[in-house]
């Protein structure tokens, strides 16, 4: 069962059975999955992009096929408040050095929580169809809403 997910080279989370992995019949009691290629000390001090993940870490998988709508990020309006980062359930908001950099479309399931918690006017994140072109989406951004009196 192979899934073709547009825009990503990663495997679908349900796509099991790579050569190194054994089936349930061969699994011995007590399975250990190693997320890193070598023993790591102090993971909390290593940036995710500098970590050496193995195929066993779900970081290397994707759930992009779940998505119906995707959040699109408009960096012109964003104030880097990081509300979307703290409440993203899927670790899909990429923030480095207090800056919001963008969205990890491999892991985003399109729940829309980030759009709900975005405080700017107009919002810096909006939901679009998952196949929508990013430039087209950005060109359709709404104007600032006036306060209702």
């Amino acid at each position, binding site marked *: 069962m192979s899934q073709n997910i547009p825009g990503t080279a990663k495997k679908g989370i349900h796509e099991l059975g790579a050569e190194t992995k054994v089936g349930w019949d061969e699994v011995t009691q007590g*399975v250990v*999955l190693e997320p890193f290629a070598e023993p790591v000390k102090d993971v909390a001090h290593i940036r995710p992009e500098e970590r050496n993940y193995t195929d066993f*870490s779900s*970081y290397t998988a994707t*759930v992009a096929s779940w998505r119906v709508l995707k959040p699109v990020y408009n960096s012109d309006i964003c104030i880097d408040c*990081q509300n979307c980062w*703290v409440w993203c359930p899927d670790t899909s908001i990429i923030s480095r050095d207090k800056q919001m950099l963008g969205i990890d479309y491999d*892991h985003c399931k399109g729940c829309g*929580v980030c759009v709900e918690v975005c405080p700017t006017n107009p919002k810096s994140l909006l939901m679009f169809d998952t196949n929508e072109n990013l430039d087209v989406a950005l060109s359709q951004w709404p104007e600032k809403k006036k306060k209702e009196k």
Partner: protein
Amino acid sequence: MAITSIKNLKEFSTVNERFEGAHLLCPGCAHSMIVRELMNATDDNLVISTNTGCLEVSTAVYPYTSWDTSWIHIGFENAASAISGAEAMYKARKKKGTLKDPDAPVKFVAFGGDGSSYDIGFQWLSGAIERGHDFTYIVLDNENYANTGGQRSSSTPIGAHTSTAQAGSHSYGKTQKKKDIVAIMAAHGAPYVAQLAPNKWKIMAKGFQKALDTEGACFINSVSPCTTEWKFDPKDTINVADLATDSLMFPIYEIIEGHELNILYRPKNIIKVEDYLGAQGRYKHLFKPENRHVIDRIQKDVDAKWEYLQRREEARV
């Protein structure tokens, strides 16, 4: 203990995540928000055990793991006893000097859903808290067995529709009240017991840091709005949590050493429980005229609980 700065969200956001995406929790699930917040609140090494439940089945789907820390799952009920054993072994090996890296700071954490903590794992949890192992137990309280199709648990509030306490012409859903597990755990004399909510991220992160920092068995009950079984739109997870805390259905407070109660969040405008109930499909039937008395009863219970908490805080007993 090395803790992450949570002075403001910008500083908090500089931590390196240890909970990976592509787990199989529903879109908009609050479980992963709470887990991420706990793991981001500290940069110590973490040893985590998890009861069976949504979190366990979704984050360790063979052959993937979403955890970048030591993580173990054994049975439905025994996250608390598994982590007790790990902690006892760690202490013993530290004493004997057989640890590879004795100076590395380690924290022990156990996660459980409300089914595995309020019901099935209650005895194991109670035992571990009583023995006073140095760990933190966190309940992801979504008020039902969401993993198996939304059966009632002893955390389900009165009036809620679940698949085993259905609302219909002869029933208004669950007829029993929610178990007050925070009070039960405080009665164990645990050094730190708290009820928190993910929408108040700072209070929650502070609570987690306090619990991790406190020696002894600490207990945290966290509301975790469930988009599937509470029946609301996935994007509204934080909005529903806001309604829960502002209507005082989930008051946010801590109890230190079993007696010193502090209310951590006082809503500026306390809203009616109707607003909270109306936002969820599982309470839809309560708005029929014949079920109005249940809403009135819930409001009465919530008011009485809030009064009780305020008096406890004042009395310092």
